[in-house]
């Protein structure tokens, strides 16, 4: 491991972080939808 290819590493970090951000956004949207679909308190 003499020295890393910094540019390649940063480009791959971008791909990994962007994928993780998408997953987080999707999970947040899913959670918001679940909250919106839940019956309000006191509703029959």
């Amino acid at each position: 491991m003499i020295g890393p290819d910094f540019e390649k590493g940063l480009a791959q970090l971008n791909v990994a972080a962007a994928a993780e951000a998408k997953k987080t956004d999707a999970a947040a949207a899913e959670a918001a939808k679940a909250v919106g679909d839940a019956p309000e308190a006191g509703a029959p």
Partner: protein
Amino acid sequence: MHEIHRVLDGAVPRCYTRAMLRKILVVIAVLVVLLLGLVAMQPNTFAVTRSAVVSAPPAIAFAQVNDFHRWAAWSPWAQLDPSMKTTFSGAPAGEGAIYDWTGNDKVGRGRMTILVSRPGEAIDLRLEFIEPFPSTALTQFTFAPESAGTKVTWKMSGDNGFMGKAFGLV
């Protein structure tokens, strides 16, 4: 007469051969001394810095680096040797996390330790190479928010030993 010719025929080329061999050895010695001098003249320290904008918030970009278990997804070293053996020890992530690796001659053997971890801002690592030759470097990652995501800066610095100086010439 024939005897004299035979002696001269054998003696003259032998003399030339020795003289030529001596000249070649002198040239090689001079080249080696010049090369050693050139290596010795290289800087005693090195520093490499690269930056890129990552399309994710700082907290997410930070998390990819702060946890060694996630390095396989992006580290350029992992691809140099797909059968590289890795061991995780110490803290699960952040300060105190340790990553040992052993692989082919492209990756060698070494250890990384997270020394400082400031969530969403910076990570400092100690990078110890054991094989092919021992050396230590400090690696720093910083994360700064940008409109398009996060500016990640990756810096590696350390002392330049003889082998490091020699590799610097290549």
